């Protein structure tokens, strides 16, 4: 992997970390609950 790609991934991860840390506790709980249910979306679409 090139140096530039590693830099981009690191910047992306840092941005995501900062973004998440800025979210309110309530927003984090909501997104966590939403993510918990995502594995079921595909099978549910076929019911």
């Amino acid at each position, binding site marked *: 992997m090139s140096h530039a790609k590693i830099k981009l991934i690191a910047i992306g991860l840092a941005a995501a970390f900062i973004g998440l840390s800025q979210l309110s506790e309530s927003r984090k709980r*909501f997104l966590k609950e939403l993510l918990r*249910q995502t594995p079921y979306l595909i099978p549910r679409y*076929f019911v």
Partner: protein
Amino acid sequence: MTDYDVIVIGAGNGGVTAGALLAKQGRKVLVLEQSGRIGGCCSTFEKDGYRFDVGASIVEVIRPIEIAFEKLGTTFQKEVDLITCDPVMTIIDRDGSRITYPSSIDATAEAISAISAADGKRWYEFVALMAEFTEVALDAFFVQPAETLADMARMFKKDPRFFKFLPLFLKSYQDLIEKYFKDERILKTMGYQSLYFGHPPAHIPGIFALIPYTEHLGVYYPRGGMIKIPEAIRRCGEKLGMEVRLNTLVARIMVKKRRVEGVVLADGTEITAKIVVSNINARTLYLDLIGEEHLPALARAGIKSYRYSKAVPMIYVGLDYTPPLDSHHSLIAITPEGVNNYWWHNVEKGRLPQQNFGLICWPTHADASLAPQGRHVLNLIPEGFYHLEGTDWDTEKPRFIERTLADLDRFAVPGIRDHVTVVECSTPLDFERRLRLPEGSIYALQQDLSAAAVFRPNARSRGIKGLYLTGSSTHPGGGVPTTIASGIIASSLIAQYEQ
């Protein structure tokens, strides 16, 4: 040649609506109901001269119901005597203080401003947002099929204003109301309504916060009890030839090569039809009445992945005095965070709270004919759930009734304990036994984003030909207008696909 064109399983609102509309299409329809009464949770029973509503206590957002009656060649207002409930609600705090919200938006702003001028001002901003969303959603969402992602895309294409509301799907109900209202006393009047969807305010999207607004579009009570709504639909259907059989339990749906062929009753009788409409819980339908061996693998995994919706206990009380209340609905106040904590610490751990909250419904405030002269009816909906840690509802029921009445006597309905003449209770276990709602699930299945619209069991079964779904299990979900909307959707899909 089959016995009927269509068999409907379950005479709840979705079932009778689909049945009546299919009879209107000229089809020979048979509705089978396992209990002795129609309406499911939207029903009324009598005891010692008092009439009690089984579950649903009022009706609002009535446009889908009006559409159903218009399609049947009449009007909702002509068939059902609707009484307007104004004020909409009184919120009672544990210190005895009360806030009453009238139906009028302006008068509600005044009530809020009396507590917090800033929140009163923001009430108008909240109303503007929710009014626009309600207008968009009523036309495009509630009475339209949500079969595929393409349907959803068409919905957005038809009214691009939907895009404006996308961010509200990515923040919680709690985030949204806390953006508009800062005073804790006002927040205590807005958070509970998330439980109308069966989830705490931290778990469902902000867009569901439309309820504290739609209550102001009109709240109605049908004279004679909630059963008057399904009764009126049944009456229209029977005029068109629809047949209803009560006390008739369906044991199995006959399926051959993934196509329905009719039903088998509990007594072994076979009744044939090319179309079966289910108005029962979708998990019961697919896993018990059809059998998972008939389902494609993904559908099998999908139907098993749904959790049952919330359950509630109901306490029905006949009184020999006028309860000291102000509105048809009163709510025991609780903050949004209080509702979340109740969910995490009580519901998920199976521990009933010592100090409860919930709704007090006073139907004789609107309709005195529900009780003997000078007497009153209260239908109490304290919060509760199906699974209890270390005990069961049959054991807990007497203690639960006593604890609830004692608690209300202290600060919300003084004197109630001394004036009870009749008391009845339906626990979640009773709802399971009497109405066959698994785990007492009043909205059938969970109602968060992951189980909404195209992710809720489809109105036209994807796995079984000739099978259609109505009721809380399918789009647009649980509630009186929504289940009636599901009946409209199923009948329009049948008109389209079953010539």
